[in-house]
């Protein structure tokens, strides 16, 4: 197949969105009850609450002329399913995810944890992760990639 798409003037990224639902509670054991309540407000409710999270994953790499793809979606989907959706969907982030035993599961921290888990994807380079907590709140993390936010 033609390799026209390989010309070096354009840089291409593939973006894929995934959805999961989970509960969390924002509470820092190092703070007093009063401080937790003041800082986290409703999110400090001891029984927790939940969100429908949307995770946007952006990867870059050469477009393979034989397939027209940066990465085969089936491979990316399987990887995200194993690393993110299986462990997070319909779970309590505080109780079911070891990374949040001692780390407050804000969406900032969730974004960093998702990036950490996905950066080992072997078929393309992870550029950044955007996590939407509600339709009004979203967070992005690009690791130590200095250009990650410049796009």
């Amino acid at each position, binding site marked *: 197949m033609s390799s026209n798409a390989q010309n070096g003037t354009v*840089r291409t990224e593939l973006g894929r969105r995934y959805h999961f639902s989970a509960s969390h509670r924002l509470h820092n054991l190092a703070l007093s009850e009063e401080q937790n309540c003041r800082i986290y407000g409703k999110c400090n409710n001891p029984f927790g609450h939940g969100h429908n999270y949307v995770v946007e994953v952006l990867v870059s790499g050469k477009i393979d002329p034989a397939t027209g793809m940066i990465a085969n979606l089936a491979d990316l989907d399987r990887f995200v399913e194993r690393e993110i959706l299986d462990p997070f969907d319909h779970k309590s982030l505080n109780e079911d995810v070891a990374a949040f035993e001692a780390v407050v599961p804000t969406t900032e921290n969730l974004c960093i944890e998702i990036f950490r888990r996905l950066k080992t994807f072997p078929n393309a380079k992870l550029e950044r992760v955007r996590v939407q907590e509600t339709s009004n709140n979203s967070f992005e993390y690009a690791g130590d990639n200095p250009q990650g936010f410049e796009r």
Partner: protein
Amino acid sequence: MVLLTRKIEFAASHLYHNPDFSAEENRRVFGKCNNPHGHGHNYTLEVTVAGVPDPVTGMVLDLKDLKEILEREVMQRMDHRFLNYEVPELAGQIPTCENIARVIWQLLDPQIKQGKLHRVRLYETPDLFADCYRNGSAGADAR
């Protein structure tokens, strides 16, 4: 520098098939997208142009001009077309979201004379998209 984005939608069909692969390999690599009769999507295209607003008009570029460019270069070429067979720019390429986005970048870039093409984002579905940027442009000079 200001970024201006215009969105358009078009509907088109495509299929993924590499004649160099065996039938079995085509099915394995491309899955459902290898159906020989093709299938279609409602594509959403977001085109972002970067520039300094003209002090007289207050515009990065006239949206009417951008609309005309998108109508001519993208809509007339791709809307209600079978991308594999009817878009010469895609001939010999698998019409994935990545490749279509790159072709659109290459079509639009020389046409945009006011401001500079900054990003082309093409959604194949709400959960799948490809972004194109000028190579090496990311960084201070792009914003």
